[in-house]
């Protein structure tokens, strides 16, 4: 009756990891939250905060002997949208904010505008230079223009590394924490401990399955950001992978710690939120951590997600090498290492 394991038999660590991977890929919701959601978020936010070409400034040209000439001169300018109006209509349009500047019919003209409005001041400069040029003034020189709408400085460029960090945190904490608490609640952990499975294998498989999922998860988001949004990766791809890996390990440690004691999903959810919500707010996912007052900075900078986001942004946007990232990476490693050690001490197997 006893038979030796066949050639296709896999080791316990492989089997435990495989079980986790199978569970996850057979869970459509998990696939959505891990793979689709971050891409969707990047797409929507990228769209909402996309850089638009500056709108032309509406100005009124009062009808008169010079009206036609002035209208023609201003129409040639991209940043100005002139309207030819009667005097009374022009004043009314200015009062109602439909135009930002009125050019009188006099010669030379009088510019009527509100100098406290930046748009009005901009219109005055553009209108004046266009009319002067039309009247025969020559430009002393023609300046070059460096328009800063190139990839790497837009909001979406800031956003994508933050979303990657957020995703690494969420899946690390939930992926490990949720599955362990479910296994504890259903007596599966106890059953595994009752079998000759090594505890290091049981927990190691959780970590391994996390790292396996990291590849498609981070890969999908980065590929989408690169192809669809033009978000650059200026630093080494290898370093980016390394930083993501360290981030995933650190948050797996935190997930393990959060899941070390709770017996129910509800209990675990509360703890997870307690850990994650502050980082959603303070760790610079959607806006820079610089916006928090100096007194909060020590707290903000000590959070593992802040360190991960900073490191990801440095590699992707600034092309940073390993050396400048060492403080962030050390902080992440410390969070991960300490969490693992404490989690193993506290871990409830039954």
């Amino acid at each position, binding site marked *: *009756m*006893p*038979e*030796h*394991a*066949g050639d296709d*038999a*896999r*080791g*316990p660590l*492989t*089997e*435990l990891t*495989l*079980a986790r991977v*199978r*569970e996850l890929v*057979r*869970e459509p919701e998990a696939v959505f939250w891990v793979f689709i959601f971050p891409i969707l978020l990047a797409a929507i936010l990228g769209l909402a905060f996309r850089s638009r070409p500056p709108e032309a400034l509406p100005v009124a040209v009062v009808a008169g002997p010079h009206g036609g000439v002035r209208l023609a001169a201003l129409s040639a300018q991209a940043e100005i949208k002139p309207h030819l109006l009667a005097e009374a209509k022009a004043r009314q349009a200015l009062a109602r904010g439909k135009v930002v500047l009125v050019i009188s019919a006099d010669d030379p003209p009088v510019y009527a505008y509100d100098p406290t409005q930046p748009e009005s001041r901009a219109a005055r400069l553009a209108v004046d230079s266009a009319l002067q040029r039309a009247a025969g003034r020559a430009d002393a020189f023609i300046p070059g223009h460096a328009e800063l709408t190139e990839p790497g400085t837009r909001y979406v460029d800031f956003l994508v590394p933050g979303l990657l960090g957020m995703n690494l945190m969420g899946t690390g904490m939930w992926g490990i924490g949720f599955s362990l608490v479910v*296994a504890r*609640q*259903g*007596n*599966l952990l*106890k*059953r595994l*401990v*009752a*079998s*000759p*499975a*090594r*505890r290091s294998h049981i927990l190691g498989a959780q970590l391994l399955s996390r790292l396996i999922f990291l590849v498609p998860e981070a890969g999908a988001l980065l590929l989408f950001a690169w192809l669809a949004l033009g978000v650059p990766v200026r630093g080494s791809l290898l370093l980016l992978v390394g930083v993501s890996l360290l981030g995933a390990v650190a948050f797996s440690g935190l997930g393990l710690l959060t899941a070390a004691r709770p017996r129910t999903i509800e209990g675990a959810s509360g703890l997870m939120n307690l850990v994650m919500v502050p980082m959603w707010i303070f760790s610079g996912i959607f806006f820079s951590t610089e916006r928090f007052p100096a007194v909060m900075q020590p707290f903000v900078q000590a959070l593992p997600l802040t360190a991960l986001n900073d490191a990801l942004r440095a590699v992707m946007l600034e092309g940073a090498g390993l050396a400048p990232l060492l403080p962030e990476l050390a902080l992440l490693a410390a969070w991960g290492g300490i969490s693992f050690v404490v989690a193993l001490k506290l871990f409830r197997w*039954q």
Partner: protein
Amino acid sequence: MVLPLQKAESALRCRGLVKRYGDVVAVAGLDLAVERGECFGMLGPNGAGKTTAVEIFEGLRWPDSGEVEVLGDEWRGDGLALRRRLGIQLQETKFPDKLRVREVLSLFRSFYPRGLAIAKALTLVALEEKADAQVRTLSGGQKQRLSLACALIGDPELLFLDEPTTGLDPQSRRQTWEIVEGLKARGRTVLLTTHYMEEAARLCDRVAILDHGKVIALGTPRELVASLGAEHVVEVTVDEGASAALTAEVLAALPSVEGVAREGGRWRLTVREVHRAVPALLGALAERGATATELTTHHASLEDVFMALTGRRLRDA
């Protein structure tokens, strides 16, 4: 070839086992020995300490005092070497819903250096047709059989089954019984806990009856029933008005009656021969102007042994 002499060691032995939870004493000085090749039952009501005791045997809990020896070994260190020789079924295990039956077995098989082929384990618990079904699609009985297969996959020398049929429908229960009988036929040592006396009577070579964390009776099911001194039980309920006239002395004096117990308005008589006791009982009632509102007889069972010892029933005790 000369075979070495088999050392006559017990499969399991415990002495003076005590386990407390706060003020509650779950196990109160338990002594047991399970011999190799036997199916040993621990029978008792809920809360009798069966599960606590079994989990101590399984190395999942530590006793406050006492000794446990499993397959001649003690629990120490990670206990992996010992675990490889044991099969364990917990009272309830929720296997991952999305895994297939075959995958769960393959997972558990990977923990053992030697054991059964997956196909063999599936056959043993009659789950061949469900091999590729996900756990979530299984019925309660099928899940329980999967759990049994996981306990068998390492081809264990000693198998622990903690209430293997609790919560199952009668058909699933019979199916589980047949599997255990198959194991017995192959000489496996089985320790099972149950609060179903039919289960203990049918499956077990020897039964320990537990109450309040102690063994209150031990023997083969036949010996335990025989200890009642009679093989039958007659239960009679007498109408309210005349019940006062009936006393234990009167009933005990009836022919063939070995024991008398009262349970509310109902009398329980342990009798050797029903055909002699019942006419005498009816005669005694008629003499006192009393009528029986209910009269039943059955073969004495382990339940009756438990009641005789504790005055309570197994199920609702």
